[in-house]
């Protein structure tokens, strides 16, 4: 049953090209902004940090850093967009047709959640692949296999987490226009909250602390790890201290508020958030079903 419901939700989402486009819009905007002027800003900042650094290495680092952010933001925006199917079903009360079938409420809820997870994982994986191609073609950088696999695992983990969080959030949304506006806000604010437009260290410390409490920047921090590991090494010419400076400046070290923590701590927090929002979301979707 769940399989058929997930298949239906996928079919509906992928049948609508505008839904796919809008779910990727925030990532596209971030990418375009960097390509046009933000990367030049970062590059000149880096030239001051690391005098005499190779300009190719600087560009490669900035590109990999941006693309790590883009991939992470994709996991966040696509898992939200995928829940458009739920919002639409709710606005038209289409649930009723499922509820007169011998399908349990649990199946219907699981159908939406799994649908969102599968859709976001597919789209984010495509973005992950495209980002690797870009790095390879433009910067001649290839991530090591373990780093690629790690990014892929992160994609899966983040899609699970965000699908759960959004499944709770969308139960407060009654109509499609409101959902679209919410999506726009998430897409725009997401870039800032992930410290992708401006690095956290460039922000006032109170703001930086706030951003570091949110799972968005924590997810971005994790994703930037495998993306920039090699380019940072090349940029620092292997000097450990320089690498550490870069990692601190560019938000590659996991933090909760202003306390440095291990990656595992972040994952434990994510696991807790996932469980919490999954339970809340499932309960609220169940109630919306009537």
């Amino acid at each position: 049953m769940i399989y058929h419901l997930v298949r239906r939700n996928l079919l509906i989402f992928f049948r609508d090209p505008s839904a796919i486009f809008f779910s990727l819009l925030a990532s596209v905007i971030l990418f375009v902004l960097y390509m046009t002027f933000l990367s030049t800003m970062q590059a000149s900042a880096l030239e001051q940090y690391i005098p005499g650094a190779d300009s190719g290495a600087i560009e490669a680092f900035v590109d990999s850093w941006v693309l790590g952010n883009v991939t992470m933001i994709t996991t966040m925006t696509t898992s939200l967009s995928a829940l458009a199917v739920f919002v639409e079903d709710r606005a038209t009360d289409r649930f009723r047709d499922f509820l007169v079938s011998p399908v349990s409420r649990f199946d219907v809820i699981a159908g939406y959640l799994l649908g969102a997870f599968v859709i976001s994982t597919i789209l984010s994986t495509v973005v992950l692949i495209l980002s690797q191609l870009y790095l390879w073609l433009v910067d001649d950088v290839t991530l090591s296999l373990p780093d690629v696999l790690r990014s892929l695992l992160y994609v899966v983990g983040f899609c699970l987490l965000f699908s759960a969080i959004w499944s709770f959030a969308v139960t407060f949304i009654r109509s499609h226009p409101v959902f679209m506006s919410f999506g726009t806000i998430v897409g725009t604010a997401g870039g800032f909250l992930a410290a992708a437009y401006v690095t956290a260290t460039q922000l006032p410390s109170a703001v930086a602390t706030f951003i570091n409490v949110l799972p968005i920047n924590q997810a971005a921090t994790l994703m930037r790890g495998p993306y920039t590991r090699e380019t940072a090494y090349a940029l620092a010419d292997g000097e450990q201290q320089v690498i550490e400076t870069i990692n601190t400046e560019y938000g590659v070290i996991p933090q909760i508020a202003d306390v440095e923590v291990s990656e595992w701590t972040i994952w434990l927090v994510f696991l807790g958030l996932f469980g919490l929002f999954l339970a809340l979301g499932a309960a609220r979707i169940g109630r919306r079903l009537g």
Partner: protein
Amino acid sequence: MAAVVAVDGLVKRYGSHTAVDDLSFEVEEGSTFAFLGTNGAGKSTTIGCLTTLKRPTSGEVTVLGHRLGANDRLIRQSTGVVFQDSLLDPILSVRENLLIRGSLYGIPAKTIKRRVEELSEVLEVEEFIDRRYGRLSGGQRRRADIVRALMHDPQLLFLDEPTTGLDPDSREKVWKTITELQRTLGLTIFLTTHYMEETERADQVAIIDHGRIVAAGTPGRLRAEYARNELLLTLGSTAAFDREFTGELAGGLTPGLAEGAAARDGLRVVLVQDSTAALEILNRFEPDIEDFEFRHGTMDDVFLNITRGGAGS
């Protein structure tokens, strides 16, 4: 015949509002049962309860021998529902919709495909089966909805206002389909409508008003009880007629031939039992008659008589 639906004292309240108030009725196997009422009379709420979508506040309901509230899954497995509003996915084709909704009943994929073929032929859905549901006309959608409701070969079909919003031609088509299905598949049909004339086609009619059944029976019996046949006469001279009908009715006429007479808009109106009585009156006053009209009592009359305070009187 066995009762396919048995409802005893069904009540559904929303806060202080009572949408359905102590309903009791039975639907016989293989029959067409029509629930007639104005908008907001409680028809859809009743269907909502019977189809397991809404939980009754109180009352006993069995559908196909399964108790509501205890065996809901079994009820869903053996009943089909056509909703008032279209609930298939507009962005998918009719075929995709049918295959997906059919798969929710745990039917093997092959059987579902065969079923889609069979039903789409019967309901003439083939010509637009690969078009997007959202692009279909109202009548086409409704036919697709009926196919969807029949995917799992149910014994009982609920139709909530299946013809509302359709043009007369599509309405006729939907009705033809319903009657055809009932005849060929032996389906029991439970439908709601606010079109009085449609209930003429049902075996049993229950009229619901403010959540209560105010009259029930076969259309014939309801008409006999709540509607009168009228004979309208345009007379050259009313003298003979008026003489006959003044004071005690049916003075020289066969007793019981006419049940009343009145003058209305320059016409003389006689309430008669049937067409034989009308013929006798026509013969009697033939020299004076310039024009006449015989009007059968309709379900409209039944409904208006009942809901305008004639119920039980």
